[in-house]
């Protein structure tokens, strides 16, 4: 997670314990609670979540700042919330 320090993370959500589509639902709920411009880190598993969640986040207009691969095979997606 060292690379996360490049960004000022306002909130973190862990979606490693859930499967599609709740992965993206939890991400959406976390983004909803932030203000425009704030930054969310989404901790997710390899495979289906990392293939789908970043794309869905982008489709909703949010800005993906970085996708960081961790040594344990999980990923951290760093997202800046777009306006409503």
């Amino acid at each position, binding site marked *: 997670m060292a690379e996360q320090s490049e960004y000022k993370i306002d909130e973190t959500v862990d979606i490693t314990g859930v499967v599609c*589509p*709740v992965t*993206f*639902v*939890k991400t*959406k*709920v976390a983004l*909803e609670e932030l203000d425009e411009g704030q930054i969310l880190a989404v901790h997710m598993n390899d495979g289906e979540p990392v293939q789908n969640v970043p794309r869905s986040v982008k489709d909703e207009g949010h800005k993906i700042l970085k996708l960081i691969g961790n040594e344990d095979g999980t990923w951290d997606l760093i997202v800046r919330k777009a306006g409503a």
Partner: protein
Amino acid sequence: MAFTDEQLERYSRHILLKEIGVRGQKKLMNGSVLIIGAGGLGSPAALYLAAAGVGRIGIADADVVDLSNLQRQVIHTTADLGRPKAVSAAETMKAINPDVETVVYREFLNSKNISGIIKDYDFVLDCTDNFPAKFLINDAGVMADKPFSHAGILRFRGQLMTVIPHESPCYRCVFHEMPPKDAIPSCREAGIVGAMAGVIGSLQALEAVKYLTGAGELLTGKLLTFDALTMTFHTVQLPPRGDGCAVCSDHPEITELTDYEQPACEFKPGSAV
């Protein structure tokens, strides 16, 4: 209000929609809908609105479940025969979604009680099967500025319109007064294909969901007609509200509710299709 994990999963398919999302689902959960008639139209509407998590759903019907209802009134089961429809419908809604608060009105709505009941709801569905009830709901809705969905079905045809009183044309703007006795057969005489009620009642539920969440555009200023035999939907643009309407013009002639005379074949206002 934060969602529980169970609610997140239950409503995930709504939350995923950009047009509904977290905010829209919260609006549904804080919203209320009154369904007048627990019959052919009211059954699918009640099922979908309960499943959608609408916070409070009122269901009004004074009838009991009859064997001939079960061909289309899909919220009731054979085990419910003889039971009050409003009670049976509320139980099914609760079974689908315990989050929903249900309010049972085991009465037909009339000029005396309707205003006191509709005032407690955000949106009203006219799921009745007769003209006295339809004119009563329209006039009460207009007088109380209560948005509602009108629907009617017969044989293989259905129609639908949404009314935002004093903004969009009302039912009476289009159908000025009660048709003469026996001009239009009731579904008891004419028949109705069950799935037709499912189509139109589901469209009413959609209008309620759209009204509560603000998604999309409502069916206002338009009349939708559906012919199942040719599988054709038409949307007819209506003239603007106002001039000359006896109830929703700026100088209405009708300022009090009336219980219109029953048509010849003995049905009660407020009874469901």
